[in-house]
């Protein structure tokens, strides 16, 4: 397996590979890589997502309420986010 990315970086990268994703979906996808780590918590993922949204590299335009009336936010990568990935994603990650 390629060298692991810092979690925030990996979340951004994952979102770039799908159309949109909510925190639970992202966590499910990244569980094989980060699942055993103490930082693998929903609140940590939400904090990363909200920060990246505040910095305009993700957008949160797509929202729904689930059956329990809880808010689900689907995040998408913005053009700014894509440019960052193109510039700074390590080479061996780009080939994947």
């Amino acid at each position, binding site marked *: 397996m390629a060298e692991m990315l810092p979690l925030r970086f990996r979340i*951004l990268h994952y979102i770039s590979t799908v159309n949109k994703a909510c925190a639970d979906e992202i966590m499910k996808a990244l569980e094989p890589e980060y699942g055993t780590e103490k930082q693998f918590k929903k609140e940590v993922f939400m904090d990363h997502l*909200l*920060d990246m949204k505040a910095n305009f590299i993700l957008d949160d335009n797509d929202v729904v309420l689930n059956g329990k009336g809880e808010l689900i936010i689907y995040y998408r990568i913005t053009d700014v986010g894509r440019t960052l990935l193109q510039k700074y994603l390590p080479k061996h990650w780009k080939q994947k």
Partner: protein
Amino acid sequence: MSISGNQAAIMMREKLNAQFARKGIFTGIFSGATWGLNSVLLGLALALVPALGEEAAIYAIPLAAACMNDFIAGLWLLLYNGGAGRFREIVRSLKTFPGLMVVVAALLGGPIANGGYLLGISMAGPAYALTITALYPIVGAILSRIFLKQRIVPRVWVGMVLSVIGAIIISYVPPEGGDSSKFYLGILFAALAALGWGAEAVLAVFGMSMIDPKIAINIRELTSGTFLAIFILPFIGGWEVISKVVTLPEALGAFAIAALAAAVSYLAWYKANTTIGVAKGMALNGTYVMWGVIFSAILMKSPLTQNLVIGSGLVLIGATLVAINPKEFFKKSGEA
């Protein structure tokens, strides 16, 4: 009137984002308060360092103190991140380009800005040097506007300018006549300090788009402390100061406690800069001068002069303007 599910979801999202931003504002104010506490505690720790001559007092002691403050804060943060299971994140981050940007930010904000600050004060005198270095939030805001394309509303600009004027009034010292041959060089060094701190924030925020602020600040503190220890202290007799301090448990303990305040403060500052933007983050961090006055009055019974009261008042008004949009504030309390 019933709201459709989608509208309810949008309202909940707006509430979540607003709560997140509000938390960022408090984190920024908290970073200012703990930085003020760090300045006061560092002053107490420095008083425990034995006299080493006039020359040492200008460069060796302040830079050795800066080195210990950053390095020990880096160790505290290592404990914090290690405890939270983020130790491996540090290594991962350092292997990426954004992680290396944070290292450059550390060098700009640590050795370069701190060095410029001290050299500025000693060459141009505190009256001019402190006035120029107090401009750092404005420098940071301008750089963030240019490089990060962050929008800054007029209200935040006005608040920031008021805060800076307040900070200048607080730190104002009447100019002394004397050697002017190094004056302009001193002014240049003071400007370098303001530029260094501003550039640090912008570069770090850029790096933190992709790496965790808690990790970024740990890298920053360890880089700055290590660089000062290896490349600066040996040439100015700084290690002599540190070797004295480590033999005095009381002094070492005082530096460790001050560094804990620094670690907490920097952690909050980096987080706030990412969450609410560089301009607001820096302006709220800049309230440390006011907090320094308050803590000095409480802990050291320092007298409150007219300048301190007026300056602190301006900082408070300025920071409030930065933090709160009066329109939203009143609208909200009206609704509630």
